[in-house]
């Protein structure tokens, strides 16, 4: 039996038995979902994990100018942080990946801004600001209108044009 099958086998056995792992130190401390809140920030393409709050592109534009343009340029045309504009009709090996021509999921925009941007002060934005900036970038990429409100219900419904163009490289490894 391979180690992998062994590990899988024993893990499943433990789940079934609900028992503590036998030969292990058992030093892990239990944690409640409440205590994990600050870290439990995953967002899924179906919208699971999106927080309350909302914003539209009109609200997002001044926030972008104040907090993002220093690196991404005025109107997001590029700087040390790269352009966030629609780019060429199709991305290629010459470059040009954008929300309009490549990103598959709108939820990823919210997730990435919330966890990583602005680069120099990550985690400093409110959820309303993140929704507004997400709407601003979606509008800039001609996916939604300037007044369309993004929130936990509307954002996952925004389908991006390139979503259907991905091939899983090694399906047997998933």
């Amino acid at each position, binding site marked *: 039996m391979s*180690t*992998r099958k062994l*590990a*899988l086998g*024993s*893990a*499943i056995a*433990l*789940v079934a038995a*609900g028992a*503590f*792992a036998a030969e*292990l*130190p*058992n*030093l*892990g*401390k*239990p*944690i*409640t*979902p409440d205590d*994990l809140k600050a*870290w*439990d*920030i*995953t967002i*899924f*393409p179906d919208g699971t994990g999106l927080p309350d709050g909302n914003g539209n592109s009109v609200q997002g534009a001044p926030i972008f100018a104040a907090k993002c343009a220093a*690196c991404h340029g005025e109107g997001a045309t590029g700087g*040390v*942080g790269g352009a966030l504009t629609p780019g060429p009709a*199709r*991305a*290629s*090996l*010459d*470059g040009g*990946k954008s929300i309009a021509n*490549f*990103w*598959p*999921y709108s*939820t*990823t925009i919210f*997730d*990435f801004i919330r*966890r*990583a941007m602005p*680069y*120099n002060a*990550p985690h400093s934005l409110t959820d309303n600001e993140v929704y507004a900036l997400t709407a601003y970038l979606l509008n800039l990429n001609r996916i939604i209108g300037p007044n369309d409100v993004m929130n936990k219900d509307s954002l996952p419904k925004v389908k991006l044009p390139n979503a259907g*163009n*991905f*091939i*899983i*490289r*090694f399906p047997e*490894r*998933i």
Partner: protein
Amino acid sequence: MAKRRTDLGAYQPEIVAGNGLLHRRALLGRGMMLAGAAATGVDGSLTSAAAEPMVDPAWTNAPGSLMLPYQVPSRFEKDVVRAVDNPNNLPRNTRARTPHHLLNGIITPNGLHFTICHGGVPDIDPAQHRLVIHGLVKRPLVFTLEDLARYPKVSRIGFVECGGNSAPLFSNTPIQANVTALHGLASCSEWTGVLLSTLLEETGIDPKAKWIIAEGADSPRLTRSVPVAKALDDAMIAMYQNGERIQPGQGYPMRLWLPGYEGNMNVKYIRRLQLTDQPTMSYYESRTYSQILPDGKAYRFYFLQEVKSFITSPSPGLALKDPGIYEVTGVAYSGTGRITKVMISADGGQSWGEAALQDPVLPKAFTRFRMPWRWNGGPAVLQSRAWDEGGNVQPLRADFVALRGQTSRPPDVGAFPSQHFNAITSWGVSNRGEVNHVYA
């Protein structure tokens, strides 16, 4: 090194492929002496100049210097450093590349291991660092570094390679750069830590779990989705690198190590593992590490770093001086398992000879290969091609780009037109001994 006259006896190294490739036996055992002998010229032309008379240098005539608690390389090795592409710490990604052409063996020294950070190198206090495992588990648990010290550990030697390593070779014309710039985003270490499967035994796994969302404690809280199958196979929470605590650039105080899988998935500063039934489609998996194909579609979840090799010497910047015997050497590796064979060509792929594989040959680790070569002073094109135990063979560049594409104009050497480039690299040697990057 001083050259000596040696009695060659009747030995003539066997030529195994065109343009001077010699049998790998010339490197091994009894052949070692003969290969040394061959350095004076196997043509029987024992014409090397005699060595200078010996004198005692200054360091032999006086005691040496202070001994350091943590030693650093000789001052004469000051050029053996990584190439850092963001020396002024501008607010953007930073990469430091391993200078393979100045190293030998299979282990990358810790200070020279490649690093990519998407938000600078965090300064983590290990006493405050926590690892949480939650989601589709029986018991969500939090571990400290001190806790993990008491868990059973394993040590394994293996490589980590950025999915974007060798990306300059997607250029439509060969970019002139050294091995560091072309292939420096791969390194190999001994990693020590707790197998993730061990910790998952303690949390228990809900059978609905198919993915583990791995998240770092760095400023972008870098996130990747990893199949549960990989986690139970050979994933490790690594805490030591070549015997000492992991370097800050490698994820201090702990990283996820997924042997053979795309570097970016080996989440550094790992602080959270969430078991789920679907991937999160993070920025890095759904956008950055999805590879555009010529027809406009793109690969997703490539994961595997496929079989690959490159020659580290001779290579650009390491010019050949005089005609005679040289060792052609480099590294081969595969995310599938062990390397089984490396073939070398000195005539641009017209003929091939088998290189010696230096022990140890380990799965998902660098394997050092060596091959004696007699350069006749004329033009040559050196190539290496590797096979792995899964039966996979390193592709020819022409075949590879026919499937995966190339740029329409040369990109910047630091650009990433695509990823997971594993085709053959060719070094052109001119009749003056200069080595250039060529496509052959």
